């Protein structure tokens, strides 16, 4: 009656499950848009919390993407010599932080108050 092979059945079951779950997720996200934001872990700050440039230690700085040991040392030296950063833009004055590097680092830093 149903002349389909085992592999074809497997493909159809997989397709059916994906379609079922996908439609259910779409329905839930449409009804509760807030839930979509909760699911979206990747864009949340939980995965990578922003750090305060005036309070961050050397060890924490090194862990920030695009900041290596040399740049971290330059930032620490700058803070020691010039005092706390007034704005994130001031980072551009630090040795080793050019425009390109600044653009990459700044999403991981909090604007100083």
């Amino acid at each position, binding site marked *: 009656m149903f002349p389909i092979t085992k592999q074809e059945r497997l493909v159809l079951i997989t397709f059916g499950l994906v379609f079922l779950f996908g439609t259910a997720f779409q329905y839930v996200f449409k009804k509760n848009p807030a839930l979509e934001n909760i699911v979206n*872990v*990747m864009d949340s700050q939980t995965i990578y919390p922003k750090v305060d440039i005036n309070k961050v230690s050397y060890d924490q700085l090194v862990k920030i993407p695009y900041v290596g040991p*040399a740049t971290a040392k330059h930032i620490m030296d700058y803070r020691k010599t010039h005092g706390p950063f007034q704005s994130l833009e001031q980072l551009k004055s630090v040795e080793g932080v050019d425009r390109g590097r600044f653009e990459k680092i700044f999403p991981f830093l909090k604007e100083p108050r």
Partner: protein
Amino acid sequence: MIKTHRPLLSITLALSLGILVSQIARPDFRLLVLLTFFSLFLNGLWIKKKIIAGSLTVVSFVFLGMVCCQNSQVVSEDHIIHAARYHKKGMTFLEGIVVSDVQRRPFFKGKKNIFILDVKRIKAPWGWIKKSGRVLVQIFRETPVQYGDYLRLKGKLYRPFNFSEDEKFSYREYLERKGIKLMFSVGKKGEYQVLRFDKGNGFEAAAYRLKNRLAKIFWKHLTANEAAIMIGVVLGDRYLIPKHINELFIQTGTVHILAISGFNVGIVAFIIFVILKTFPLGRRWQYMLTIFFLVFYAFLTGGQPSVVRATIMACIFLASFLLEKESEPTNSLALAALIILLQNPMNLFDVGFQLSFISVLAILHFHPMIMRVLGKLPFDQESRVAQSVLQCFSVSLAVWIWLAALLVYYFQIITPVTILANFVVIPFSTVLIILGFGMVFLAMLWPPLALAFAACIKVTLNAMIACIYLLSQLPWAYVYTKEISLRQVFVYYGIMGLGVLLFVLIRKLNPPKSI
């Protein structure tokens, strides 16, 4: 006991040794050619004497490795590098063909386009001069430039520089290994002009066109970060993955799932095979078409060493069904290495090449040893679940142990959490690859159906990232280490090799009792 025949393994190891020695000692090229010829001649002379001829074959391939390595580093007289010093100041005009896919990377509020240009001509004060060689071009704006376009560019020609004092990684050396000695920037004052279209290879052009079309599907249905990861996993473009997410994968030792490897190629081969099964085709046609589509997929993903390795191994495996001859995995692996090294000997120093081949060797030879040891543990030998858990544990442990020294050398990190993380990440990534291919396939046939796949991808991908994040927060999940020297790496692998030899020797002296 069946004796395994692996003629290509010793040849490939000899060739690799030759490349390594040539990089360190740099012997005279003419002498090397003579020595290679002489050893091959003697080989032919004593072809019937098994031991002498075998040793001479190995020796001749060591010399051949040196010859290939030296040849790959010599540039022709019309190479653009010779003209570069005259174009240090001011603007330079160049003409050439785009020979790579065009990367469209975000740059400040706009985008920049990056691609490799096969140089044809350069403009001197007295007119255009024919030149050869490859340069890495950056155009600091969005352009419609595509693979195969013949371009005229106005910009700055310069030697690549090392971006940061933070990293041991040298960008200049990395590009030189790929045969690129110069960069060309087309900034605000620069210009570009497409003079002719479709000057590239038709097969490659079709692969890149399809890749860009598939990438657009991901961009359309997913958020930027989700699309970047899916494009990396399915289409091989990893440059779009945000650094902080990439870092999470590095810290948990699971970055291998972001790179296209044997695992991904295996799933792709399975999907192609399942689709082909729905057509009224004979077995032979199914195998041949799967091989064809796998090669197409290797082109589509940019032909990195790990993809080429996995594709060659998969093709040999499929061809063995066609020829009705059993393939030997280590021999297939050696053939893949041989092809990649003969194409560019400098690939031996590529991190991706080293990680890819060592991990497969560990799976092929070290994983069974671990399984033999684990087999003595008191557990239900009949249980399929227990067997699967042990297999996964053993594979992860084998790869982790064999890659540890290289990972410390290149990335200064030890990731004990890897073994646990693989249990979580591998099932997730398998589902993601299947969903990813399903989505792009359906989006081309019937777009509304792709929405259901996109919703599943969103949930699965975020769940995987959340798990990876939690694993990275475990105590002692990863440890950043100090730099180690190349000598220490060799000592580590020497000790590992001796350990394996000892294990094999003990096994030979005390063979397992058969029932």
